[in-house]
């Protein structure tokens, strides 16, 4: 069995991660005295023979050590592409990153050579994906896929690696780990497979874990378990978590801060509670309103956001949400709004909008939600 | 849709062959068995009067090749026709009628598919004896299982389609449904298969002739036969081998290119 000593890596931060999570201590204490992750003006395009898709159009955000950030948006808003771009995992043939920087601990990931990126992937930054069935190699045993990581990055020999792997499976809650090591992905259930993915991701104690729709492909009850596991790991490992999802419920329970993305841009970012209580961007308001409640009457109409998501084959001119927005003005259509601190909101709340939601409408929503925060 | 340069090249080549074949008597300087030169141990190669040279019996090679195109195209076309018609019938019956007849037909088809196509043809020829008609039948029969399978699949898929059910509910007899509704909708993959099958048919004919199982008439300018006859003359008259051989390759390549192009064009993944 492994000992704690074997797991030790030189501690980068001596701060108690749970304290940071509780917002008690300023989180700006990483080795570089800045945020752990700094994404600035990231742009991603996909170029094919007939057209160009502007998937990400100027995304900027920070992530501190041990912080949990949620990224919410509809399919096609660019949230997954952002994370893939960060790690250089986009398809080389069609993806272009014409602008932006992704600073992780001072290094710009977009400008690194492939072999340095390989060192960072899986070790400092890990990623888990949506569908655990297709994300695991079907002809390789689970144990092998686990030991691969620790042997590559931490230099363990076969015995140490197997011990570590069994320990990992145990930590993510898989019973009888030793036996399971020899088994193949198809012999696990969906939830278990996702746990295996998580185990693979945390094997080298990464400082940042990116979870791309980790629970979407799972049953609701399993969803809750997986999210609980992620929360527990964040706490014990002190790692930062970037949780990408389209489900507002998921961020509500898990993330300290949440960013809302639309058409390849972040339109609003705030501490989660603050976002739900005082949404500034019409899109965010629309999202919150569109979630049906258990206690609304039978004949309460569903309130979808009118219109359809933007076709991303053209570059942005003006606010992307304008065509669907009740508050849109001429300015919205002409000038691209930038993230600025929201006037009538709490600290750390930024919105990219020329016409943020008026107080009255927001209060109507809060009433609808029974004053829930 | 004509984005496929290969198909265009292929189509041109095939077109050229067809034209040559059709216009053979006009294009060829002499008949396929007409002797224009003397017997020679080392037959003369390509030159001004005889573009492809002469063979060991003094016959003009160019003429023989051109008339050979006629033969190959004819045999290829007819065998595919044989295979296609038989296969269509069997496949439609199997798909439409279903049940035990379906099982029986498909079992036989599977059995046939278990053997290498060419060897089956050899076996059939052994039973039927040599001769042009026998060859076309043998090669045709050997391609039946592929067509049968294709048609059966198509029929099965469409049997439950709305418009078929509609036609049925109106009392339209099954045969009519088959002919006017189901078959026209299955045309695309059948055309592709027919084209590709023609390519293999031409190679198979040449192969049979090469083994001495081809049409009995020694004068017939069959390309495979030419290869067999002159296999020992590589030193003295390699042109006697090169021209028929490359004729086969070019024609088959052309047909394959067209077939591939058709397959891309008629793919259900339309609507980019």
């Amino acid at each position, binding site marked *: 069995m492994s000992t704690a000593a074997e797991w030790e890596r030189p501690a980068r931060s001596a701060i108690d991660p749970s304290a940071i999570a509780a917002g008690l201590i300023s989180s700006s204490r990483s080795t570089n005295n800045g945020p752990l992750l700094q994404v600035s003006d990231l742009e991603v395009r996909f170029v094919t023979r007939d057209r160009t898709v502007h998937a990400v159009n100027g995304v900027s955000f920070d992530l501190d050590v041990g912080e949990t950030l949620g990224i919410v948006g509809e399919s096609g808003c660019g949230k997954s592409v952002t994370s893939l771009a960060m790690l250089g995992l986009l398809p080389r043939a069609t993806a272009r990153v014409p602008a932006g920087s992704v600073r992780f601990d001072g290094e710009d990931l977009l400008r690194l050579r492939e072999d340095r990126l390989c060192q960072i*992937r899986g070790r400092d930054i890990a990623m888990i994906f949506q569908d655990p069935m297709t*994300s695991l190699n079907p002809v390789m045993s689970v144990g092998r896929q686990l030991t691969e990581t620790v042997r590559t990055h931490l230099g363990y020999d076969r015995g140490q690696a197997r011990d570590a792997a069994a320990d990992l499976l145990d930590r993510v809650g898989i019973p009888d780990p030793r036996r399971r090591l020899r088994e193949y992905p198809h012999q696990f259930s969906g939830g278990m497979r996702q746990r295996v993915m998580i185990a693979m991701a945390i094997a080298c104690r990464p400082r940042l874990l990116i979870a791309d729709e980790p629970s979407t492909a799972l049953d609701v009850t399993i969803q809750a378990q997986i999210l609980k596991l992620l929360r527990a790991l964040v706490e014990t490992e002190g790692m930062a978590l970037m949780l990408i999802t389209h489900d507002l419920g998921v961020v509500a329970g898990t993330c300290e801060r949440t960013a809302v993305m639309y058409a390849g841009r972040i339109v609003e970012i705030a501490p989660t509670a603050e976002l739900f209580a005082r949404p500034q961007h019409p899109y965010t308001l629309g999202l919150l309103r569109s979630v049906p409640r258990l206690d609304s009457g039978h004949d309460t109409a569903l309130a979808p956001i009118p219109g359809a998501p933007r076709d991303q084959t053209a570059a942005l001119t003006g606010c992307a949400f304008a065509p669907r927005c009740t508050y849109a003005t001429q300015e919205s259509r002409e000038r691209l709004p930038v993230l600025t601190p929201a006037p009538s909101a709490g600290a750390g709340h930024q919105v990219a909008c020329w016409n943020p939601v008026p107080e009255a409408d927001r209060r109507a929503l809060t009433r609808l939600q029974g004053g829930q925060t | 849709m004509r984005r496929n340069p290969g198909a265009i090249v292929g189509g041109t080549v095939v077109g050229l062959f067809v034209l040559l074949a059709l216009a053979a008597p006009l294009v060829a300087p002499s008949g396929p068995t007409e002797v224009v030169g003397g017997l020679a141990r080392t037959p003369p190669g390509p030159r001004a009067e005889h573009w492809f040279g002469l063979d060991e019996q003094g016959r003009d090679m160019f003429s023989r090749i051109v008339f050979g195109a006629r033969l190959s195209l004819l045999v290829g076309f007819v065998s595919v026709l044989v295979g296609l018609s038989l296969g269509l019938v069997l496949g439609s019956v199997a798909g439409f009628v279903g049940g035990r007849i379906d099982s029986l037909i498909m079992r036989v088809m599977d059995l046939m598919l278990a053997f290498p196509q060419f060897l089956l043809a050899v076996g059939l020829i*052994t039973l039927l004896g040599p001769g042009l008609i026998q060859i076309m039948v043998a090669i045709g029969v050997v391609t039946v299982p592929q067509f049968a399978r294709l048609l059966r699949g198509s029929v099965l898929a469409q049997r439950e389609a709305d418009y078929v059910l509609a036609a049925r509910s109106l009392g339209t007899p099954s045969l009519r449904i088959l002919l006017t509704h189901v078959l026209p909708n299955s045309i695309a993959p059948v055309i592709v298969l027919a084209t590709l099958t023609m390519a293999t048919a031409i190679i198979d004919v040449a192969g049979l002739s090469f083994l001495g199982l081809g049409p009995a008439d020694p004068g017939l300018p069959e390309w495979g036969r030419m290869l067999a006859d002159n296999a020992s003359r590589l030193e003295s008259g390699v042109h006697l081998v090169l021209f028929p051989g490359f004729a086969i390759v070019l024609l088959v390549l052309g047909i*394959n290119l067209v077939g591939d192009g058709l397959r891309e064009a008629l793919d259900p993944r339309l609507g980019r």
Partner: protein
Amino acid sequence: MLKYLARRLLLVIPVLFVTSLLVFLFIRALPGGPAIALLGERATPEAVEAFEQARGLDRPVYEQYWDYLRNVLSGDLGASIRSRQPVTDELLVRFPATVELAVAAILFAVLIGVPLGFLAAKHYQGALDQTSLVASLIGISFPVFFLGLLLKYVFAVRFDLLPTTGRIDVRSGFDGQTNFLILDTILARDWAALRDVLAHLVLPAVALGTIPLAIIARITRAATLDVLGEDYVRTARAKGLKASVVDRRHVLGNALLPVVTVIGLQAGLLLTGAVLTETVFNWPGVGQWVVAAIANRDYAVLQGGILFFALVVILVNLLVDLSYAFLNPRIRLR
């Protein structure tokens, strides 16, 4: 896995029966009747009648079939009309030649085809990819016998580089025990003879293996492209594994599964090709033997040859099924 193995092996038996029945019927259907077939066309009517009585050809068909089956199972396949030798003996001498050729051809096809297809997929739509696609197309449009003749011309007639007839220099006088000449020469440590054998093997193997090469390359390319788009390859990269490691361990392993099946399916192609290639290169194998038998109406030989081919096809299919079951953990762990 064991259950699957057992089931699969048992399946072979009915297949063998059906095959023997078909061959039996085939021989009896040949023009001239079995008596003429096995005695030769010049047999006198008395000889024919005696033959028919002796062989019990006046007995009901199923009894004849039973006799036939017993003969086959005890190794008696009749005698060749031409050589008057028992078919079984000659078959035992000839089949190693065909097998050696076929194995060499498939090795050639796999060792070049698989890497080619893999690289073409990795550099999708690059120069290698485009050229290999064109080459594949040309490859399958080439009749095997023309390719053989062409190779013969270039390598033997034009530039006297390689031998083109038979398996070994007629003057060498080497006599192997198993007739698997590569094995025999190694066992006898006759290196000169080994070189000679290999030299003779090159051209026929290349001719025979070219079409399978084209097909294998294409299939490998398709399979690799499929795998490269799979999520687990992305996961492997996300774990920080180097590209070469990802290729080797994750991509190849999965891409090779369908390729293995295809390799097995080439057996049919190889048999066909063997018949034609052996004729071109005067290779003393079963193919050439069978072709001659058809021309000579040597039907006992024909029967032996067909049974041999059928057996090979059945065996190869069995091997392919078993190896696929072994390689795919979803089937292996049942």
